[in-house]
């Protein structure tokens, strides 16, 4: 027993030694941008790739004058915290946290290293910034709030009698809660009443959706990872009961929803990438306005699904078909 304790101590100190000597060697003109996210899902990875693309557009090319240090927390918040500490300890030039909790962990870890967040739905509520214009401090970034108004208008074009809109969501997700508020707010202007049902886990999506059938003119599935995971079942219920199903995210249309207006997450990332470039060129993050992506990206992506529309008992007007970025047959 005693011997093995010593052995372990030796192994531990050896591995620590390796770790301590591993600090990165950076050339003077080489900039290091650290990117981190809580978990790898397609939109977040697209955001990350967009950041790198945006940086390249502004002259910061990976391998030439830019090093990207990328980490994801595998869904684990304590690990996310450790990643934040790691980046701060390495003294990288800019940290790009993707998603709300990730950004909070990074913001808590440093008050000096510039932070440009991306894909945070409501950065003011998350206390990352106090206001969008010249936020001050070391934090700025891009909000990925959904273009709700454009979405609701599109839904109304396709379902003219739309008065009651079902909203299936996981109340445990901050972004979904925020989206619900915006849909209610924008819906009021368009005379649409929102009927919400909660589905805290993917298993509860079916009963939640069934509760809406007959009570609503259409169902809206927000950009909610829990509900989106069961989108096919929602679509199936929609087809069986002739209830139109729309999504807050365009990818859902390929999976059977009728239509959506969405953000191109590569472009969201590129917006952040441009901001990072400004910081690398010497501007303070606090002097760079934080932005809402849909206000800056000129053309939102409109995707429609003709087959699903027919199966759910509606037809897509020609005007919509004409301006659609993509039509799923």
């Amino acid at each position: 027993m005693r011997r093995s304790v010593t052995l372990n101590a030796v192994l531990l100190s050896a591995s620590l030694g390796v770790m301590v000597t591993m600090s990165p060697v950076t050339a003077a003109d080489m900039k290091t941008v650290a990117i981190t996210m809580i978990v790898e899902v397609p939109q977040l990875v697209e955001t990350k790739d967009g950041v790198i693309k945006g940086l390249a557009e502004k002259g910061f090319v990976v391998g030439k004058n830019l090093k990207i240090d990328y980490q994801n927390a595998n869904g684990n918040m304590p690990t996310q915290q450790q990643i934040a500490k790691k980046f701060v300890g390495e003294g990288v030039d800019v940290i790009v946290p993707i998603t709300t909790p990730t950004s909070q962990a990074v913001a808590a870890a440093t008050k000096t290293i510039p932070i440009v967040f991306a894909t945070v739905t409501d950065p003011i509520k998350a206390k990352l910034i106090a206001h969008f214009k010249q936020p001050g401090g070391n934090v700025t970034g891009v909000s990925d709030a959904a273009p709700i108004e454009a979405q609701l208008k599109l839904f109304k074009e396709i379902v003219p009698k739309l008065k009651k809109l079902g909203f299936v969501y996981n109340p445990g997700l901050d972004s979904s809660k925020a989206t619900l508020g915006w849909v209610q707010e924008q819906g009021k202007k368009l005379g649409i009443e929102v009927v919400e049902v909660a589905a805290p886990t993917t298993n509860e999506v079916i009963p939640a959706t069934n509760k809406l059938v007959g009570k609503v003119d259409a169902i809206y599935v927000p950009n909610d990872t829990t509900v989106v995971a069961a989108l096919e079942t929602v679509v199936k219920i929609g087809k069986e009961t002739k209830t139109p199903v729309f999504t807050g995210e365009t990818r859902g249309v390929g999976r059977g929803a009728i239509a959506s207006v969405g953000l191109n997450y590569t472009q969201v990332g590129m917006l952040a990438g441009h901001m990072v470039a400004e910081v690398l060129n010497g501007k303070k993050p606090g002097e760079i306005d934080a932005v809402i992506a849909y206000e800056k990206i000129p053309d939102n992506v409109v995707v429609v699904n003709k087959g699903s529309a027919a199966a759910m008992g509606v037809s897509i007007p020609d005007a919509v078909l004409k301006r659609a970025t993509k039509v799923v047959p």
Partner: protein
Amino acid sequence: MSLYEILGTVEIGLVFGLVSLGAYLSFRILDFPDLTVEGSFPLGAAVLATLIVGWNWNPWAATAAAAAAGFCAGFLTAWLNVRFNILHILAGILLAIALYSVNLRIMGGPNKPLLGSPTIFSMFEGWTTPSYVMSPILILVLVVAVKFALDLFLSTGIGLSMRAAGANPAMAAANGVNVGHMKLLGIGIANALTAMAGGLFAQVFGAADAYMGIGVIIIGLASVIVGMAVLPSRTVMQATFACVIGALLYRFAVAFALNADWLGFRASDVQLVTAALVALTLVGQSSRSGMGRLLRRIGQR
């Protein structure tokens, strides 16, 4: 690995030392596989953040309140088990599920930011020694205090009864120990420790989040097992020390995994590398396995 990162790792490791102590109390002392932890960790965070942000509580009082809330959660789990004979694992799962909704109610949403709000670490602002050095020291003091308090408690009459109740319930009952009461108290304390850890973690993390509890039970258990594998644990004092060290080792395994890119690992391999490191530690300890002997032979050379 920078000094800043090492201190950050120590900080989180120590916070999880409390979770590990809680897991030791429930799993080892009381032989009660308690899964409430998955809910009581974010419960502590939620209570603390809401009291500080919404009610302007003193961060220390809020941390204590977080622990008290955790005690209630653990007490309820044990109560379901003791009073209604609900299987201990199921009772814990029920509480963990329920606490998810409770936490959302407490916070009025899934995320409560603490950025810019006072925390127990705020007092170090303006000190010459930077906060990233002082914070781990403060947590170390707290965790050491909790460890010795737990040691002391387990050597009192009630503590000894509790150990007896876990080790041999029939025997303990025959000797006049109320096994049910011991479970109520013990699981309560275990969850108080976990919720306190949750409260501390929220202050380090900068927010309380409904999803903070994911994997906490696994980390807590792994820490207990790793700690007891590398260090002697014959007495309570040794065992609680081993638990805290186990939690630190676990966090260092994660840190190592995060820095393992030079070995060709990708960002998404962190969990795999962490698991492999923990497994290797255990294999290295098991004298019966060939791998253990092999490692030891290498070690002797």
